[in-house]
């Protein structure tokens, strides 16, 4: 498990290898797309997979690294989706702006979506100071439902009818860029002193407090950053689908992200990527089963959890998502006590 092959790599390659890999991956995909070997359907599934990676990775920050229990993550996503869509569709009328201005407007939209979500994320972070475990979970669930219920009632953004005519800006380039950026950012964050603080809170909040970590600050920060990323992911989602409506961000979607996170392996960014990508593709692969599709999906999910209960990746990281201290990931979930329950 020692990072032998990372050490033997040329330092430059180690530094820029992943970036190079991403560029090569992008170019290959685009070439295949041009040659029509990858058709629009595969492209679209990849776009959704990218959005799901963003969502899962951000949820990982809260649930996997900071040890909080958020089950209303889709609420942040909806705020970001609406925030971004309002900017690109209503503030700057999408079809009336010149081509050159589209990208800045799109980015501005994503930023606004992210900020709206982050502000609310900070608000949700506040109860997390008082509440623990399931009690916090219920508050996040309630928050998700409240956001959904309120979005239905705001008529200027379509209410229950949803928002239509959102420009189709989010192509493979943008999704890929944001996925790479987010993973890079999260990796650096987790290995920074902030990340160590998050992990300390996860492993034992009281001990972390005693060691002089301002748990209040870090918990709110964790929620805030995760909400920002989820907001951006929501903005991208809106600009992939070009139609959003409040009910698509319900508890079912939040539960999906929880499944992606834990099936992939919580406390591991690689796990988030693998979990989100595989489980986005799986239902599509199973389409030949017609009505029995979700039955088999459920069986596969149960089997994965039974036979690889630490998740598919199980707290490991691929070399470029891991800096030196791989030991941080060794036991992400196991061997800690929770809420006075008798667990090993």
């Amino acid at each position: 498990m020692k990072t032998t092959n990372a050490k033997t790599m040329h330092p430059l390659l180690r530094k820029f290898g992943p970036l190079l890999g991403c560029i090569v991956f992008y170019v290959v995909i685009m070439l295949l797309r041009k040659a029509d070997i990858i058709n629009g359907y595969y492209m679209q599934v990849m776009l959704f997979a990218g959005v799901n990676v963003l969502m899962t990775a951000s949820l990982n920050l809260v649930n996997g690294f900071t040890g909080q229990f958020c089950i209303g993550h889709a609420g942040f996503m909806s705020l970001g989706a609406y925030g971004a869509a309002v900017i690109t569709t209503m503030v700057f009328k999408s079809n009336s702006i010149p081509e050159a201005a589209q990208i800045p407007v799109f980015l501005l939209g994503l930023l606004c979506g992210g900020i709206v979500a982050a502000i609310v994320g900070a608000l949700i972070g506040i109860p997390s100071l008082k509440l623990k475990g399931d009690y916090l979970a219920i508050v996040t669930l309630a928050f998700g439902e409240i956001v959904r219920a309120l979005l239905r009632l705001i008529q200027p953004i379509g209410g229950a009818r949803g928002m239509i005519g959102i420009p189709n800006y989010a192509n493979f380039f943008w999704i890929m860029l944001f996925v790479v950026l987010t993973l890079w950012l999260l990796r650096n964050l987790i290995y920074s002193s902030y990340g160590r603080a998050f992990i300390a809170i996860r492993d034992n909040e009281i001990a972390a407090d005693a060691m002089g970590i301002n748990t209040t600050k870090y918990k709110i920060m964790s929620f805030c950053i995760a909400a920002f990323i989820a907001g951006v992911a929501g903005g991208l989602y809106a600009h992939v689908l070009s139609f959003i409506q409040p009910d698509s961000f319900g508890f079912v979607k939040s539960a999906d992200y929880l499944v992606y996170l834990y099936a992939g392996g919580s406390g591991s960014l690689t796990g988030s990527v693998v979990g989100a990508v595989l489980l986005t593709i799986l239902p599509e692969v199973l389409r030949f089963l017609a009505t029995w599709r979700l039955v088999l999906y459920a069986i596969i999910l149960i089997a994965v959890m039974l036979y690889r209960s630490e998740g598919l990746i199980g707290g490991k990281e691929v070399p470029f998502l891991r800096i030196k201290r791989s030991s941080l990931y060794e036991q992400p979930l196991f061997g800690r006590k929770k809420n006075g329950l008798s667990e090993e």
Partner: protein
Amino acid sequence: MKKILRILCLALCVIMAVSVCACGPSEKKGSVETIKIGLAFPMSGMAAMAGKYSTHGADVLKEELGGKITVGDKEYPIEFVVMDTEGSEEKTANVYQKLIEEEKVIAIAGPDSSKCMLAAAPIAQNAKCPAITSFGTNTAVTEVGDYIFRACFIDPFQGAVAAAYCDGQGHKTACIMFNNADAYSVGLKDAFVENYNGEVLAIEEYSGSDVKDYNVQLTKLAAQNPDVLLLPNLNVELGLQIQQARTAGLNCQIVCGDSADTPDVAKVAGPAIEGVAYVSAFSAESTDEAAKKFVDAYVELHPDELPNSNAELTYEAVKMIVWAIQNAKTLDRAGVRDALAAIDGLDLPSGKMTMDPETRNPIKGGIIMQYDADGITRYVSTVNP
């Protein structure tokens, strides 16, 4: 540990390679091309019942065609490709992409809900593939582009029919309870309020199909003592609502949208269903040849059930596509689109149907149906607001 990782990576690569190969140069066409029609319906999820009826409706036409279609004097094999949308926009968009890009369907029927269609319609429009929504009543659906059609009424029309019927019956006061989480429900309510000449005494709301307790809202409405109660809601909710309304003491006339045209609503509501009127385009007891044929064929295929509005609208949508294929100038998506827009006086179960080439909405008359004490639907009147 490293081994496991390596195996995992390998597995990932294999999966990707397989999927890329699978989607690659798909099998080249044989001598006679199969014509494929896509059907996108929710087979699972909360709306699964609508999907079940829809696909059963399409089965009738499949049986009728017997696997082949005659275009001009040439016979082609025909295939219906059914895919599950789960009632989610995201999945519907995937299904549309798959049907268009991979299955190379000539046209798509479904999905049944406006929200899913609104997410899918831009895809069909960009790919220039004609698509007919069976039950997407939101006006915005066909405004997406000239490749998007619908087989049902639009909300404003249906609301106007309901309002005209209530006015015609001399109902002076009305109350409404609607689902503020559902576009169909909101659309019908808005259209009704706009067109109704009487007074709307009170409007109560509830959120989503999950909550099954309407007692409070109905009790409040009962206190208003209206002449008519409008329930513009989904078929999975209506049975309980009608029953609870009667229990709460609302003994006035109840009027619903076309989603009430579902046998299960009557079954769940039990005796309370008596006298409930709804807007429809189609009457199962119609003596019209096409309607009779459809109902008979449906019951023969699915002996345990009667067709509902989903089944009937899907049948019509697919029938329109089949007709368009047979009458297209060129046998491709553009040709089918043009033929669809030119439908004029096509014999369908709901009567002779003409497509408005401008709005791509069908021009249909609205009829009012009413449930009798045994839960059988009876024709009441034809309303043209």
